[in-house]
């Protein structure tokens, strides 16, 4: 592909795409630093004249908004942040780990037969709402309701089809001959995959991990139906910032949303090189 200079029409389209993409982020960040009087002011206040961190403080000190005469926040978001981190990190690690093993088994050894990929994908063929209540009944019976163990188990079950299919497409792109050469050199199958296959799909692995992490991090339905008092996640807490005296606490919701974006932004930044490669891996058919 040649390095042609950006033409004006393309530059305009690109600028529009950037604005459309970044506008919600801009609005959420601005709302997060607005005092309550500016949250839903008419006309809208784009950039607060007196920015404040009170919304962020409210996340960890429910009384903080009291300085603006707003009360009714009953709980800190600490448990929700902890819960999201724990559930998302563990579930993502296990989903990607199991998905990778499954992807190699399917791609290289036709594990389980030709129908296996479709069977795995069938887990995503009906809406989560349809399986939420059965999960609640099963988990209630076996004592997994309102536990992180239960939530992580569901997250793995729900994201495993994605991780398996995504990783399979990356493994498919690696020529078998490279692994066979390693085995001829004396490596076992497992060692060949660990030292040859996986490094070659590193970009795809990072991209899959980030994708699965985002799915887990933003998941709402299962966290809502499975949680009582012990577990909570950020999306569930976001829905609870409503008080009788101030209605929806848009600023506090925005602050938690900004906080929730941070791990994803950091992860995306750290692996951006791999990410770009991972996203385009397999785009050109051999």
């Amino acid at each position, binding site marked *: 592909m040649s390095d042609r200079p950006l033409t004006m029409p393309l530059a305009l389209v690109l600028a529009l795409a950037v604005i459309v993409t970044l506008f919600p982020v801009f609005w959420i960040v601005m709302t997060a630093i607005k005092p309550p009087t500016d949250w839903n002011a*008419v006309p809208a206040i784009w950039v607060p004249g007196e920015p404040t961190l009170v919304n962020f403080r409210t996340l960890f000190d429910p009384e903080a908004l009291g300085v603006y005469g707003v009360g009714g926040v009953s709980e800190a978001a600490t448990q929700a942040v902890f819960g999201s981190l724990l559930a998302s990190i563990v579930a993502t690690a296990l989903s990607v780990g199991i998905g990778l093993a499954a992807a190699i088994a399917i791609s290289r050894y036709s594990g389980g037969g030709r129908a296996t990929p479709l069977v795995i994908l069938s887990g995503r063929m009906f809406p989560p709402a349809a399986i939420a209540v059965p999960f609640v009944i099963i988990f209630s019976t076996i004592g997994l309701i*309102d536990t992180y163990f239960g939530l992580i188990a569901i997250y793995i079950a729900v994201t495993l089809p994605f991780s398996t299919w995504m990783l399979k497409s990356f493994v498919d792109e690696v020529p078998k001959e490279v692994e066979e050469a390693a085995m001829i050199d004396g490596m076992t199958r497992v060692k060949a995959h660990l030292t040859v296959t996986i490094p070659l799909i590193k970009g795809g692995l990072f991209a899959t991990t980030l994708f699965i992490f985002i799915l887990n991090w933003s998941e709402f339905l299962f966290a809502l139906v499975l949680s009582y*008092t012990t577990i909570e996640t950020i999306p569930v807490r976001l829905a609870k910032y*409503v008080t009788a005296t*101030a209605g929806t606490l848009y600023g506090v919701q925005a602050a938690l949303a900004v906080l929730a974006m941070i791990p994803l932004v950091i992860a995306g930044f750290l692996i951006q090189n791999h990410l770009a490669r991972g996203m385009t891996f397999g785009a050109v058919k051999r």
Partner: protein
Amino acid sequence: MSNRDKLQSEATKLDVGSISRRTFMSRMAALGVSTAVANFIVQSPLGASKALAAIAGPEERAWELAKEMAAKAEKKTLTLLIPTGSIGNMTPYVDKWQNELGIALEFIEEPDEVVHTKGMQEAVAKTGRYDVMMPTAMSYPDWIDSGVIYDLTEWTETYNPELFNPDFGVVFPASHHAQLYNGRVAGLLNDGDQITLIGRGDYIEAKAKEFEDKFGYPLTMPKTWKQYYEIASFMHDPENNFFGSLEYRSRYYVKWMFMQRLMSKGRLYFDGDMNPTFNSDEGLAALEDMLAMNAYLHPDAFSFTWSSNYNSFGRGEGFMNIVWPSGYKYSMNPKTGPATHGKIAATVMPSDTLADGTELHAGLFCWGYGYAVSKYSANPELAYAYAQWMTSPTIGADAIPYLGGYSDPYRVNHMKDPTPRLVDTYGTPYLETLYDNMVNTVPDFCLPGGFEYQDALDKEIHACMTGAKSPKEALDDAARSVDRITRRVGRDKVKASWMALAKNLAGPIKKASGADGWV
């Protein structure tokens, strides 16, 4: 000596004639009893001691039961499933329950639209994590039928919460619609949710002459829907960001605007055989009224939630608003009503003229939280004791004015004999308005499948308001959806429940709708 003992002692002194009525009144005031309640005690033919015992009885009986059950309870926590934003009415009593009963109150807050679902979920999950659940009245039928909550009737017969007392019971007909399912007590109401009409009293004074010159009658808060429309059109001044009214056109809320108008025209949702009746001439007229009003509404009407609606009105962006009682509180508070505090006039919902020429005043009792007791609670009687205690005439009156909760007046004494704190919060005229409106209220779809019914209607009314469907199309489609729900839930079952509701409608509504001929 406790406050209650002191009150009892003073009542006994009055009964035996050792103190005068005047002295009794001043001592009651010193003990924090409102003039109205003191008057009720003084004037009661029962005698002061018995009158005091009567109004304080539900609280005391509940407390005795709570003490007994707390002592027996192995689990020393009472867990409440409550909607987010409602906790402020309950937290003031947490220390009392902990210190005097050794019971920790734990609150699980869920978004209000999720509470019903969480209850239904508990019916299958049976976790026992909830003791007390706080749904709206619409949840009771499905919750009772699914076996997730207790029928409270026997407890209410034993411990008598005075639900139907004419002096301090829950105002009829909400006492029946918002607490009973098929004639049995399913929950205890703690929130008198009804819509009333509020407006800017200051504008009424300023524009009186101009209005009368134009329309030929004095400018007041509207008494009829026709006046409501005319006054909105007169006050509408979009160039100055001031709109005729702020009523809702947004999903989830818009059905109530329709239902209210339908009731005013003397139509209910169903006839005596569960056939939908909103797809009628009255229903079409209600939708036409709403479409005509769209021209004089706030531009955010199609996206309003209750909080954005209250905020807009509080900023002074309209002349009238259709609000729950909390909307009045918002508008009168300088923090939430910077442009409206001290300037609010209120009235019962406007009337409509029926075919026979009578004016029908109908209200809508919509939403309305209450306490129910989970079937899977480890301490159900303790949970019941909490519900009765919190909703007793006395504690209820104390809890309502606290900020940070949704609870609004629901018992007769809250409106007719208000405590000073209730008067400070709502003002005597508005409490009178609430009472006058509440006695003519029609309930939500407090029937099996209630949430499905209301959603089916809401979807179609919204489609009509946005122009996606004509009024006839929208109402016919809603009727088809509602019929499907009735068939699925079971016509006989829903009909029995509908008849129980219809039996306890206010007299004028019964007559106008023809329900007096079915039950």
